[in-house]
């Protein structure tokens, strides 16, 4: 994962060292653990430091002084789902584009044509959503 000092082939592709290097994984997990300790340590420290005086009003939801009407965890706008769906389609595609971008010098013109076809098909979906008016905010 974190093989350092890869060599360049004649096509300019970076060839990673083939041996599996686990150092990177240790860094990610270890740093995540350290951050977790830092965050919850600070929250606990703040809890010990701060004063606490619960009143009924402090537990109520803040909605500009007006009592909450109806259930908060109820239905909300469909537009959010549509953007999430579009995002999933494009986010999966981006990982292919990244891989393609790294080896572009080796695959040259055929590579560009193939990626063009792929993206045209993908953009067709985007234009469909556009025509249907899903990209408008309502």
């Amino acid at each position, binding site marked *: *994962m*974190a*093989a*350092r000092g890869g060599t360049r082939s004649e096509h300019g*592709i*970076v060839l990673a060292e083939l041996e599996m290097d686990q*150092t*990177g994984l240790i*860094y*990610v997990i*270890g*740093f*995540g653990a*350290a*951050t*977790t300790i830092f*965050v*919850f340590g*600070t*929250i606990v*420290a*703040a*809890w010990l*430091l*701060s004063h606490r005086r*619960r009143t009924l009003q402090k*537990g*109520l*939801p*803040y*909605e500009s002084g007006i009592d909450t009407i109806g259930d*908060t*965890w109820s239905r*909300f706008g469909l537009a*959010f789902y549509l*953007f*999430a769906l*579009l*995002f999933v389609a*494009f*986010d999966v595609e*981006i*990982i292919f*584009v*990244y891989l393609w*971008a*790294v080896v*572009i*010098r080796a695959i*040259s*013109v055929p590579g*560009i044509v193939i*990626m063009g076809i792929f993206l045209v098909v993908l*953009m067709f979906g*985007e234009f469909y959503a*556009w025509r249907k008016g899903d*990209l*408008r*905010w*309502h």
Partner: protein
Amino acid sequence: MDFSLLLGLGRFVLATTLLLLLTIPTAFVVIQLELKVIALMQLRLGPNRVGPRGLFQSTIHGFKVLAKEDTVPDQADRATFTLAPWMVYMAAAMSMLVIPFAPGFVAADFNIGVVYFFAILGLSVVGLLVAGWSSYNKYSLLGGLRSAAQMVSYEIPLTLSVVGVVILTGSLNFSQIIAHQLSHGWNVWWQLLGFPIFFIAATAEINRAPFDLVEADSEIVAGPFTEYSGMRFGFFFFAEYVALFIMSAILVTLFFGGYLAPWPFPAQLGGFIGILYGLLWFFAKTYFFIFVAIWMRTTLPRIRVDQLMGVAWKVLLPLSLINLFLTAIAVVAFKL
């Protein structure tokens, strides 16, 4: 005991501690800068009471937050309410792992650094969504959903505009991206379309003005943070300013040569002097772009929520695809 293992462990502990410690002064300095720069641009004095010329105002703010009462709404989902600030802060802090501060001065020099960075930074969406949902407040819920829709939409042009840089440099490794800029000049000159797309999308991604709809006070109070107080709110605030620093750092690394000086000499200084020289340029460039972000906040009015999504999907996405193909064709045609 294997000596190299011990050395590796020592490096890990040192890198982790340094990075975590760096986030604290970074947040204080950026907040102080924001208070002071906005004040001067509005012809006010700004903070001038705490410390010499008000220098410790943001530090005092930080300690104040630590001592504040931390309330949880009665109907909130307690577990997720506590987890949300952790998620947002972790997403910001963990993306610091791959930032090259100076030659050889990077915590983990991944081959897939660019992918790792955007993957980890994207996790903060989950934190904001969880914060909005768990608060049991309609403003929070709407704010959380709105911020998720915004960040998710702008992540597409953000990541696609970086593909231009990846095509140019042929690598996903941040150190090699900088090494390429040493021999070919800064990427911004080769990415005259890619850079503005990245800049706009990055501003939206970290919810800075003019895209600060998440915290549009007049519409949804404080968005997903409405019910938060004390240190739990502090971590959202903290993460926001760390994210501003990280976005500027990545922008500098990708487009403005990272730790390289603006002129080609000395090409690469060795040893300790080289690291100090690299750090100097890295922080100078990064803080310049933080200043630009603050400048934009005082200058530009907030964008309307109905225009927000249109900009991402109808303008920036097609433009970033055009930029991608132009770069690819140029690289193949001229053997750059």
